[in-house]
């Protein structure tokens, strides 16, 4: 198990955002994290990488208890993440963004070595021609790829992807899906939050489903689609239910 959460709970004032979440990811796996809006998916990410300290429970990463450690500890142990709303370092160039990712990641590379890694990762994500451009001047799809490049440059063991497909057009989505599969082939374990159901069903080995801060289901994509609790949770959110249904229709 590369990552394990044990009964993790988090409360914000009157809102119980996470209720005793326990799950684990195997090395090399792609685990999809789905659930209606407001289910607590991003909060779970933030609790895993140390942005929030859980009120109860433990977060174990590669055999080490990271509970309550600040986020840079998780980063330096090999956990990288992207944001749902992209957060490029706008005034820095694309290349500098990715160099920063490599410098402060798992291997804490020197600037010179980080530059080599950055060039390689930019090439892989089709951003090689944009290196000298300020990151703020990229379009949305490019910014998404930049976020991915920055987190990959850290050479993480585990990558947390928060809706990397949101806001992309269909051809960009299929490109990104391929990239995700390629990343996994390179030996990186992936935990991904995703709303684009077709895509997440396609790439995930397993899925976990959050609803209202609770883990309500866990299993293979085909099992999840037919799980009555999952369907019920999504019926509370008609748009999401529709997406789930259409994904299931195309799949069968």
């Amino acid at each position, binding site marked *: 198990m590369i990552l394990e959460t044990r009964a993790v709970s988090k409360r914000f004032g009157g809102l119980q955002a996470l209720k005793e979440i326990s799950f684990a990811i195997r090395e090399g796996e792609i685990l999809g994290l789905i659930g209606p809006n407001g289910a607590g998916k991003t909060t779970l990410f933030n609790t895993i990488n140390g942005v929030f300290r859980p009120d109860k429970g433990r977060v174990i990463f590669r055999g080490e208890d990271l509970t309550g450690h600040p986020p840079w500890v998780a980063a330096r142990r090999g956990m990288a993440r992207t944001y749902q709303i992209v957060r490029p370092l706008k005034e820095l160039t694309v290349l500098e963004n990715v*160099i920063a990712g490599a410098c402060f990641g798992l291997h804490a590379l020197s600037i010179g070595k980080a530059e080599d890694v950055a060039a390689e990762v930019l090439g892989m994500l089709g951003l090689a021609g944009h290196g000298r451009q300020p990151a703020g001047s990229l379009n949305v799809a490019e910014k998404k790829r930049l976020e991915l490049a920055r987190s990959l440059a850290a050479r993480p063991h585990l990558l947390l992807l928060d809706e990397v497909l949101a806001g992309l057009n269909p051809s960009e989505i299929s490109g990104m899906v391929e990239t995700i599969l390629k990343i996994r082939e390179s030996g990186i374990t992936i935990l991904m939050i995703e709303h684009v159901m077709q895509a997440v069903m396609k790439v995930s080995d397993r899925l976990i489903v959050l609803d209202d801060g609770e883990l309500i289901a866990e299993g293979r994509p085909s099992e999840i689609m037919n799980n009555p609790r999952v369907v019920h949770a999504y019926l509370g959110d008609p748009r999401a239910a529709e997406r789930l249904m259409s994904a299931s229709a195309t799949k069968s």
Partner: protein
Amino acid sequence: MLAWGTIVWGGGNDATREKAFTLIMFVGLAGSLNILLGYTGYVSFGHIVFFGLGGYMGFYLLAGHGWSLPLASLAGGVFSAAIAGLLGLAVLRLRGAYFALATIGVNEAARAFVSNFEPFGGSTGMSLNFSTYQQYGGAGKALWLTFDLMVAVTAAALLASALIKNSRFGLGLLAIREDEDAAMVMGVRTPRAKTIAYMASAFFPGVIGTLYFFKNGNVEPGDAFQLNMSIELLVMVMLGGQGTVLGPLLGAVTYQGMRGYMLTSPLFKDLHLAVAGAVLLLIILFVPAGFVGWLRERFPKLRGVLE
């Protein structure tokens, strides 16, 4: 910088030296403020507190304990850096306007404390015994030594800011400036990085303060903790281009030139701070990147050359 020092050294004229001294001092102060303001994005409105406190400490060691000037000024710098390290634990948790306000508060608190602190002479401050200059071979030689040291410390401040900017540590600071939360998640130990930047940007003003008050021969709270000097430093850094190495140099030279003109012009002589405020406003509204930043944006080819 050094070229300029050489002109003054070559000329050997006291009046030119005095003018150059003030200018070089502001270049050094602006350059050190830039390490915090330009790289981490934390706006310190009360940065002059480190000039004042370091200057007081250095002067105290000079006047009261007979330390030599180089040693005392170094001690002034170390003292300022240490204070910044301690203060940083508290104020660097604040962000944006709250941090800026806190730094003003710190400056005023330091002034009030020193005004009532007897070992530092309370509200009347301290003066150097004229015989102190004898150990440097007379007042004239002592002033030249002060000038040489000022050139050296300012060059060191600019060199440090260039080295920091091109280092891994500096990249972490720039990441903090752009998005502190994202920087943390990327693996930057943000509290430590910010504290080191704060200490570095406090060290040089402490050295400079000691040199300045040694040259004046006395130090008092009103001179040491002038909030308007703090604001003028901000104008210099913003004018030249925050976050660039050359920006503070150009900004300080330009601003000092402007100030010199205004102070001697009958029309503007009481208005120079008002003009400084207006300049700051115009920069923030129209050229937030400052002169060097604007050049870098306008001519991307310069990016490699113009740091």
